[in-house]
Structure formats: structure tokens, C-alpha cells
């Protein structure tokens, strides 16, 4: 297998292995726990490295993953004392553990082939050349093996406990009432996240592993509300960024993991801006439309209330409802387009349709069923604001 293919494969496998726990972390509002874990496994890795002298050793992976779990426990313990809030607890625990790791590396720098730079961003470039040798026969890069095994375990757990995970993520009360222990699922998920982080650590480093976990899931969450689709989409985004990131890095002759993150960032930015219903542009558009439509409603109600011609002059309306010129014009045009009003000599009057709409809306407002107005708009409006 050539190096290029090996690197791309490792990157893709890592992206997929990270995306799956990432989806659940984002949905459970625990995205920052992944940040905490990815930092605080460092002392575990360093100590494990002293003992095993092999970054891909299963013992090192277990030891480091264990220190990830310790972080979670520690954060929860501090939180339980009530001395500080959860976010402060996270913010206190991981820098302390990470500092210990960095200092251990610095003190024993000569005995250890880890440098602090690699800790943050990993060395995907070299991961492909660290081959697994058994009896002088090469079986491909070590990290490919570790990541594949982790991925298989993650997938197996996902298929086995999909229902339970889904339930406890969205309705923790129901899930514990049905007898699925939230604690077991919580720590199970944390363990998977820890192991995945440790395994990916070698390739992509402490901080980029956070990007691979959170960004695909966040982007997917903006596109769908279906858990299955969200998982598939995150995996897709992960793979896209891994492949795109590799070629971008080669073209730029720069760090592969940095480039993968940058591609992920671009993907997220695009989704953030253009997602059909939840993207920034769609949201801003919807907010503007709602503003106009609420104004329209206010305007119609005003007309309904005031019969005298004086009150219904356009100029007077501007003054009375206190709108700017542009807004007033938009509203008037929208009302005319929808046949709600007619204008004669600068005097506005409600049409029959407008009257019906207004009275029905008033009914809903009085009976506190404001949300019904939204459905009503579909029936009455030919054009939306």
C-alpha cells in the first residue's frame, strides 16, 4: 500500500470514528467534554509511553482512555460540590491535567519521542510509515489497525445500543423509567469518546480531534433532525474533509491535520450560511418575513378598529403606527398583493377578505391561540412577506 493511500485511509477512518460519538456529544450538550478529554488524556499517554514505549500499544490506549474517564469523573465531582458551575469545572480540570502532561514531556524530553507540537496537531504525515511488524513481515501502518479496531467496536456498540442511546439522549426521564440506566450509557459513551480520542490522538492531535468530533455533527444537525440521517451526514462530512484536507495540504505543502480542520471549517461555514431552514440566511429571511407579517397584522387590526376616513389616510397611518417609509411601503404593497386592502385617493380600506382575515386573527389573539395564526396565513396569503 502506498503512503498516500495509507494517509487518506487513516484520515477517513479517524474522521468516521470521531463523527459517531461526536453526534451524541453534540446532541447531549456535552461537546466541550470532548475538548476536556482530548486535553487530559495527555498525562495518561505520556505515562503510558514511559511504560510501553509504543504509541500504538493497547495498554497505552487503555491507560490514556482511563485518564479521560477520570477527567469526566473529576469534572462531575467538582460540579457536585456546588462550588463552581459546570463550565468552570471543565475549564479548571483539563488545563491542569494537560499542564502535567506538557511538563512531563518537557522534563523527560530526551527519553521520549513526543514533542508538544505533535501533541496538539498530531503527525498524520508519519503515521503511515509506522508499520506494524510481526516476524519481520509488515502488516500496514499501526495506527490504521488501532483506528479500524476502535471503529469496529464503536459501530458494534452503536448498532447494539442505538435504541437505548437515542432514548437516553432525547428523553432521559423516560429512559431511566424504562430501566435503561443513564449512568451506564453516559459512561459508556464517555469511554468510547475517550478511546476514540486516544486512538486518533497520534494522527490528528488533541485539539483537532475536537474538531473532527464536533464540526461534522454540528453541520449535520443544521441539516436534519433525524438521528440516523444526522449520523450518516456527519460521517459523510468527516470523510469529505479528510480527503479534501489531504489534497489541500499537499497542494499547500502544510500540515494535513490543520488542513483537514480548515476544510471542516469551510464545510461548516457553508452549511451555517446556506442550510435550507436552519442556516443563517434562511433564519434571517424568515425573521424579516415574520417582522413584515406581524406589521401587516397590526396594520390590518388598526384599519379594522378605525372607520373614519381621517384615520385611514396613508400619510396618517405612517404617523400613527410609527413606521419608517420603507417598512410602510412594504407592508402596504404586501397587503394589496394579497387583496387585503384597496386604496382610493390615498385612503385605505379593508376588502372583504381582509376583514375576514383580521377578525379571525383577532379571535385567535383574544383566545390566546396565537400559534394558529401561522396556519391561517397559509390559507389567506398568496404572497408571503
Amino acid at each position, binding site marked *: 500500500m502506498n503512503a498516500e493511500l495509507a494517509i487518506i485511509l487513516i484520515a477517513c477512518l479517524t474522521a468516521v470514528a470521531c463523527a459517531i460519538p461526536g453526534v451524541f456529544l*453534540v446532541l447531549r*450538550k*456535552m*461537546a*466541550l467534554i*470532548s*475538548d476536556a478529554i482530548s*486535553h487530559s488524556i495527555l498525562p495518561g499517554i505520556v505515562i503510558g509511553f514511559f511504560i510501553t514505549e509504543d504509541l500504538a500499544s493497547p495498554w497505552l490506549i487503555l491507560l490514556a482512555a482511563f485518564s479521560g474517564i477520570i477527567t469526566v469523573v473529576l469534572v462531575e465531582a467538582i460540579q457536585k*460540590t456546588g*462550588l*463552581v*458551575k459546570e*463550565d*468552570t469545572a*471543565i*475549564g*479548571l480540570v483539563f*488545563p*491542569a491535567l*494537560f*499542564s*502535567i502532561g*506538557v*511538563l512531563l514531556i*518537557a*522534563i523527560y524530553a530526551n527519553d521520549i519521542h513526543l514533542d*508538544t*507540537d505533535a501533541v*496538539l*496537531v498530531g503527525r498524520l504525515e508519519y503515521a503511515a510509515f509506522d508499520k506494524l511488524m510481526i516476524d519481520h513481515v509488515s502488516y500496514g501502518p499501526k495506527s490504521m489497525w488501532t483506528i479500524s479496531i476502535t471503529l469496529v467496536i464503536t459501530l458494534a456498540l452503536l448498532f447494539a445500543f442505538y435504541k437505548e442511546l437515542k432514548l437516553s439522549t432525547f428523553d432521559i426521564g423516560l429512559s431511566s423509567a424504562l430501566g435503561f440506566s443513564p449512568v451506564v450509557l453516559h459512561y459508556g459513551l464517555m469511554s468510547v469518546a475517550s478511546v476514540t480520542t486516544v486512538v486518533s490522538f497520534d494522527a490528528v492531535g488533541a*485539539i*483537532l480531534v*475536537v*474538531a473532527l*468530533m*464536533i*464540526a461534522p*455533527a*454540528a453541520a449535520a*444537525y*443544521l441539516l436534519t433532525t433525524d438521528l440516523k440521517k444526522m449520523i450518516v451526514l456527519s460521517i459523510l462530512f468527516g470523510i469529505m474533509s479528510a480527503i479534501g484536507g489531504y489534497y489541500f*495540504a499537499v497542494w*499547500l*505543502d*502544510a*500540515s494535513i*491535520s*490543520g488542513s*483537514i*480542520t*480548515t476544510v*471542516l*471549517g469551510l464545510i*461548516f461555514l457553508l452549511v*451555517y450560511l446556506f442550510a435550507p431552514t*436552519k*442556516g*443563517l440566511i434562511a*433564519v*434571517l429571511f424568515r425573521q424579516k418575513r415574520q417582522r413584515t407579517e406581524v406589521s401587516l397584522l397590526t396594520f390590518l387590526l388598526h384599519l379594522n378598529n378605525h372607520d373614519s376616513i381621517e384615520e385611514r389616510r396613508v400619510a396618517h397611518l405612517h404617523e400613527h403606527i410609527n413606521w419608517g417609509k420603507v417598512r410602510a411601503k412594504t407592508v402596504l404593497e404586501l397587503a394589496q398583493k394579497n387583496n387585503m386592502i384597496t386604496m382610493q385617493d390615498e385612503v385605505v380600506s379593508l376588502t372583504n377578505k381582509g376583514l375576514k382575515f383580521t377578525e379571525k386573527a383577532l379571535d385567535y389573539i383574544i383566545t390566546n391561540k396565537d400559534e394558529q395564526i401561522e396556519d391561517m396565513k397559509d390559507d389567506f396569503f398568496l404572497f408571503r412577506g
Partner: protein
Amino acid sequence: MELIDFFTDYTLRTITLGTAVLGAICGMLGSFAVLRKQSLLGDAISHAALPGIALAFLFTGLKDSNVLLLGALISGFIGTVWIRGIVTKTHLKTDTALGLILSLFFGFGELVLSYLKKQPDANQAGLDKYLFGQAATLVQSDVIVMIIVTGISLVVMLLFWKEFKLLLFDKNYAMTLGFNTRFIDGLISFFIVLAIVIGLQTVGVVLMSAMLLAPAAAARQWTNSLGTMVILAAVFGTFSGVFGTGISASYNNLSTGPVIVLVAAVFVGVSFIFSPSRGVLFKQIRLIRNRRDLELKKTLYFMYGIVEKHEDISRPHSIKILNGFQGFTRGTLKTLSDKSWITIKGQDWSLTEEGFQTAANLYNTNMPES
């Protein structure tokens, strides 16, 4: 390092002064971050500053720390704005937004740094120090900038003290009083970003948030007054800076950032355990004391139950009949007699008048404290 070096070594003095000032400003402004529940915003901002540093160098080619920090300030600010955009405009939660900005910006920064590293002129060496901080690179002009920034933020904090405090604890009230909460909010955020940015050179991108949080979290345990907390946090921050620099200067290979953070973590640990009102230790002691008191009262009430059936209150009963009752130990019996609620004669006990009254009123809420 000998102690005497500290007073004679000019460089070390500059560095120590720098970290001390940094600790002070971080503690001061960190108090606001912690109380506003924005602890991890600092983490996101400091990571988001990295691409700013790298791009500032890429475009200007200057390694002047003021130029780089200006870049950091801008990209940190963009990160903050984007976080706010994600939280307010989409249904993604704060934690996701923070994690996203933190990792994506940092990754982009790493990309630019690695690109710079491959450039033929080796001028870019030393940008790495912004990852973990190297106080040794502080020069006098850097320290002067730090002191000026600290001075300005101190003045602003004192000027807007009332507004800051009001916003912190009752935002809605501040709004109804007609304060421009958005402006005040922005002002606090701006100074927090500023504190983070000036700390990058010393503590580094990765650990800067802890520098902001730890002194404030430690100070919070000792007081319930904002003023005292800010001062205490500044003091803790200063000590962390000075001790951290001292320790890291005595060993050659140590980055300053991690050492300072660990010193600050020790402050936090000590505060969590030993603070008299909130600390875990005294809380536990109070808990045990309360439990003992409860057991005592339980025993007394049990005795009352026995005595109640007899006409003569002071009639002695055998200690044996208390056996099997959980609240009873020799110790409680002695304490009860010390309080002169009972008298003990040989193997018998009897309730005193005072003990009888106390037990009778045990469940009346308006009973005077015994």
C-alpha cells in the same frame, strides 16, 4: 536559581514583573468571566486567536509582538462574534458553538503556521511560543504594554463598577433602569478578550483560559462580595504568575504556561478544600456535627417518649431499655447529661425538668436554639 539572582538579574525581574501584572489583570477580569458563566468562552477566544497571530505574521512579516497581538485580538473578536451568531441564529447550543470555534480556528491557525514553517526564510521560528507561552521572551516593552492595558482596564472597571455589578447579578433590572446593557456587555467582553490576548505570549493559546478562570474560581470560595473577590483573584493571579515564573526559570526546559497553570490549580485546590464557609472540609465537618446533633435529639425524644407515660418525670429508668435504639451511644448519653437534660445514676437515667421541656418543644419551630 539563587534568591539573590532575582534582585540582580534584570531579565528575570522584567519577566517576573510581566507575569505578576498578567496574573493580576487575568484574576481581575476572570472574576467577571466566571460570574457571567462564560468560563469556557475564554478557552474558545484564546484558541481562536492563533490564526490571527499566524496571519499577522504572514501578511506583515514582522515578529513584533504588538503586531501579532493585534492580529490575535482581531481573530479572537471574530471568533466571539461567530459564537454569538451560532448561538442566537441557529439551534446549536453554546457548548457546541464554543467547541466548534475553538477547534476550527485553532486548526486553521496550525495550517497557516505549518505553511509558514515550510517557507524558505527561517524568520518565522519562535511563533510556536504562542502555543504554550514562553515568559523568557518577554522584554521591557511588552511588560510596559501589559501595565498600560492593566491600568486602563482598572480605570474602566472602577468607572463602570456599579454598572458591571448590576449587569452581572440582575441584567433585567439594569435594563429597566435604562442602562445600555449591550454597551456594558460589550465592554466587559472586550476587556476579557484583551486580557486573554496579552497573556498569549506568556501563558500560550492552549492554557490561557485556565489563567483567567483559576484565580477567580479560587477567590470565589473565600467571599461573597464582588469587590473582595476581584481583589483576591488579582492577588492569587499575581502569586501564580510570580511562583510559576520562579519555578519555570529554575528549570531550563519548562514552558511558563503549564507551570503557572499548575500553581494556580494548587490555589484552587486549597480554596476548594479549606475555605471556611464553602470549602469541602468544613462543609463535611458541619455535616457531621449536624448529624450528631440530630442523633442527640433523637435519643432525647426517645427518652421523652418513655418518660411521658409516667407521672413522675424524674423517675429513673434503666439504660438497658435504650438498647436497640440506633441514636444511642455512651457518648450521646454523656453529652445529654452535660447539657443537664438528664441525670445518670449508676445504670439508670432520668430526665430533668429542663430536658423534658426541651424534648416536648423539640418539633416546635419557634423553640429557642439549645
